[in-house]
């Protein structure tokens, strides 16, 4: 094998790819963000509208479905590259707007700035995303191309530098690849933060010739969507990373384990693998080298515990996904007993960048033991929901208030839930905590895989603890008694508390059980299951006490502890909006034609609150529910006084 063979073969591919990209740019190019979330916001009908408009006006343009730019709050999103102007990104492109922008821009040269979010390239007319407050904090590595390239076209990826790292890796001795990854300090982004280089080294050193690499795309945290977005928006990045990992440890077979709930990601990854194979970037003798690799997809079947590596392997072997004792670690004895490395989607997606730019470049981002960036799915009550990538050790405050633009609806931040079912809720006072593996664990939460749910004053801390425990309890595989029964017992107590049937000793019982579940569980599902309870008890004990001692839910969220009530002095009387909205006909007129809710009938569906026009805002929630009686009495007395 000639040493330059891969590079020479790759140069040809690159040339082709650049031609293909140049061809696309010969005409105006329209990109539409059509990842799952964009689709839910109506991206596919936008796509249809735009195509119809182009046909109607007999305009020639290339229209592409792309992935997610991370600005999910502004969906549907569209980008137009038109001759003579910088590429412009439009947000909130609702029905009719897309067609109008296309028409005005492409026929009259009017870029419709009123709909523009930002320009994508620096220029002296429009601001770019880098000029946003979040631009100061964001540093996109893995997300850099997401939303800007066609995930279904390998040429697009190659023309932006894709697969150069694999080409380079094919010419590096495998030990050198591992050394580079070790030097970069890359830590696994699946939750535990284990050093990736060490894992690879163990696998490489393990005896045997049959080895496997598995990409963990099970993304089980019920509040996270980073891995999905990466796979839908730029699947080749993970494929390239996986191939480099496989080459480094000497594996001839790779798998991508994707959750069944992500059909679009499955489709995109399958296509990416196929295209890479056609180009000779996967399969036998990659780029003319003597290295061969095949990658296959395995679909998960919806069990959270299967994200745990030994359970994941069990499920690939056709067994129920039950974790087993480690060691031996999968790197020594994994799939079918062979040395196997399992890495998260994000972990693998950093690899091509590290190989391309060097270990020093990576350690230059982030801080000390936590190099690189952190990728978060921002959800909940934050204004800019979506994906964000910031250097490790950025503070929570910067992420939420600068990148996320703060809390929606003028409300107050109460807590941030990080790390999903294994993580915890951090209060306002902990907002200066740096986001990295070590600081978050110290504060009582966990880095987890990157789910971040922002909670405001309307969110009940006992309820969120109950929610996560309900989740882990259902997802426990049942192998360990404490994980199975201890979490059930904790859940029962939390359920009672949220129903107003808590007892003063409950808090101590919960703490005691938490310690036992942590100590008596084999895998991290059980070991970390009590975290949501412990962190809320630590920071929001008074909310537990209000539930237990007063039957009051301070956030007015727990159904059993609230009642809906219409404020007589606020109600406009004859607007009647609430009456029609109520599914159970619980709202009627009183003798003064003011609306009253029949508490017996009310199912607490919140429809009337949403129906009552914002200028009146007459529907409120009261907690504890018996306050309704007092309010009624007040009203009657007030009326008597007034009549006297």
């Amino acid at each position, binding site marked *: 094998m000639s040493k330059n063979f891969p590079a020479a073969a790759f140069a040809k591919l690159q040339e082709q790819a650049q031609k293909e990209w140049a061809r696309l740019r010969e005409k105006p190019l329209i990109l539409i963000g059509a990842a799952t*979330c964009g689709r839910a916001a109506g991206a596919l009908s936008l796509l249809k509208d735009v195509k119809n408009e182009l046909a109607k006006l007999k305009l020639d343009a290339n229209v592409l479905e792309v992935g997610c730019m991370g600005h*999910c709050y502004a969906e549907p999103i569209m980008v137009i590259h038109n001759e003579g102007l910088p590429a412009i990104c439009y947000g909130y492109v609702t029905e009719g707007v897309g067609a109008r922008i296309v028409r005005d821009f492409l026929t009259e040269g009017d870029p419709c700035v009123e709909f523009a979010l930002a320009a994508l390239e620096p220029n002296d007319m429009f601001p770019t995303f880098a000029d946003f407050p979040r631009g100061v904090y964001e540093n996109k590595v893995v997300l850099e191309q997401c939303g800007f390239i066609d995930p279904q076209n390998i040429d697009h990826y190659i023309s932006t530098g894709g697969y150069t790292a694999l080409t380079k890796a094919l010419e590096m001795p495998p030990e050198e690849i591992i050394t580079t990854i070790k030097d970069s300090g890359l830590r696994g982004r699946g939750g535990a933060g284990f050093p990736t280089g060490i894992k690879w080294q163990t696998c490489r050193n393990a005896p045997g010739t049959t080895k496997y690499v598995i990409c963990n795309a099970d*993304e089980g945290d019920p509040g996270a969507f980073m891995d999905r977005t990466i796979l839908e928006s730029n699947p080749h990045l993970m494929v390239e990373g996986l191939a480099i990992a496989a080459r480094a440890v000497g594996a001839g077979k790779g798998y991508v384990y994707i959750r*069944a709930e992500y059909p679009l990601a499955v489709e995109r990854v399958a296509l990416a693998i196929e295209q890479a194979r056609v180009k000779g970037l996967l399969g036998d003798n990659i780029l003319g080298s003597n290295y061969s690799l095949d990658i296959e997809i395995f*679909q998960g079947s919806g069990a959270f515990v299967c994200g745990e590596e030994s359970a994941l392997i069990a499920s690939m072997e*056709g067994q129920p996904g039950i974790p087993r004792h480690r060691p031996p670690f999968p790197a020594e004895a994994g799939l079918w007993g062979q040395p196997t490395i399992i890495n998260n989607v994000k972990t693998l997606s950093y690899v091509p960048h590290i190989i391309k730019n060097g270990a020093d470049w990576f350690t230059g981002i982030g801080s000390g033991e936590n190099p690189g960036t952190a990728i978060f799915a921002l959800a*909940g009550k934050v204004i800019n929901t979506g994906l964000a990538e910031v250097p490790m050790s950025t503070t929570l405050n910067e992420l939420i208030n600068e990148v996320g633009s703060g809390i929606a609806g003028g409300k107050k931040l109460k807590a941030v839930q990080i790390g999903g079912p294994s993580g915890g809720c951090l209060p306002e006072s902990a907002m200066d905590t740096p986001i990295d593996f070590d600081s978050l664990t110290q504060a009582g939460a966990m880095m987890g895989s990157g789910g971040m749910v922002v909670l405001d004053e309307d969110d009940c801390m006992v309820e969120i603890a109950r929610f996560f425990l309900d989740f882990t309890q259902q997802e426990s595989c049942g192998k360990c008694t404490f994980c199975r029964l201890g979490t059930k017992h904790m859940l029962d107590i939390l359920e009672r508390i949220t129903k107003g049937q808590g007892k003063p000793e409950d808090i101590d019982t919960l703490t005691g059980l938490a310690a036992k579940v942590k100590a008596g569980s084999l895998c991290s599902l059980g070991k970390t299951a009590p975290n949501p309870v412990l962190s809320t008890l630590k920071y929001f004990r008074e909310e537990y006490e209000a539930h237990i001692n007063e039957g009051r839910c301070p956030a007015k969220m727990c159904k059993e502890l609230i009642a809906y009530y219409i404020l007589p002095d606020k109600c406009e009387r004859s607007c009647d909006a609430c009456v029609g909205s109520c*599914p159970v006909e619980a709202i009627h007129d009183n003798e003064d034609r003011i609306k009253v809710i029949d508490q017996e009938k009310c199912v607490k569906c919140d429809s009337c609150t*949403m129906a009552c026009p914002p200028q009146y805002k007459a529907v409120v929630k009261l907690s504890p529910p018996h306050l309704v009686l007092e309010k009624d009495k007040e009203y009657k007395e007030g009326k008597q006084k007034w009549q006297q």
Partner: protein
Amino acid sequence: MKITEEEKKLAIETTRRLLETYNDNQGNVIPVLQQVQNKLGYVPAVAMEEVAAHFHIPSVDVYGIITFYNQFRLTPPGKHQVKICMGTACHMRGAHIIQESWERRLNIKLGETTKDREYSLERVACVGCCTMAPVVVINDEIHGKITPTRVDGLIFANQLDNQKAKEGAAPNE
């Protein structure tokens, strides 16, 4: 819910046809079951028996796999499979209220199918659109920012579609 003889026959035939393309390596058990579920919408007992025989494992093992994983159904789904997202973001934005609206309107509980097999109700963990919470997936389509009124709207739209389909099927169009 009763499964008819015809459904049983179809299930056996479908499963056998699928099994022809797989060897008896145990790593194929779950992919085969996923295929069966894809084709039929559920995995009935007769299909499990076929799969068990093919892989030379006891039927109870297949049953164990089916019940372990949330993805598999034992009964036929409705024509409209309504899946309510119960992920963190959706939960905090009132997924339980949405769940109750569906239950009330369809007069079934989570995990059940309506008598006419038009609808079934299930829960799913996060489908990855938290920014559109609360989210409902109907068949493969994702609907975001659901309210109880939207639930009514979705059911109504479906009734209209059904009606149109019926009229369209009439001889003189």
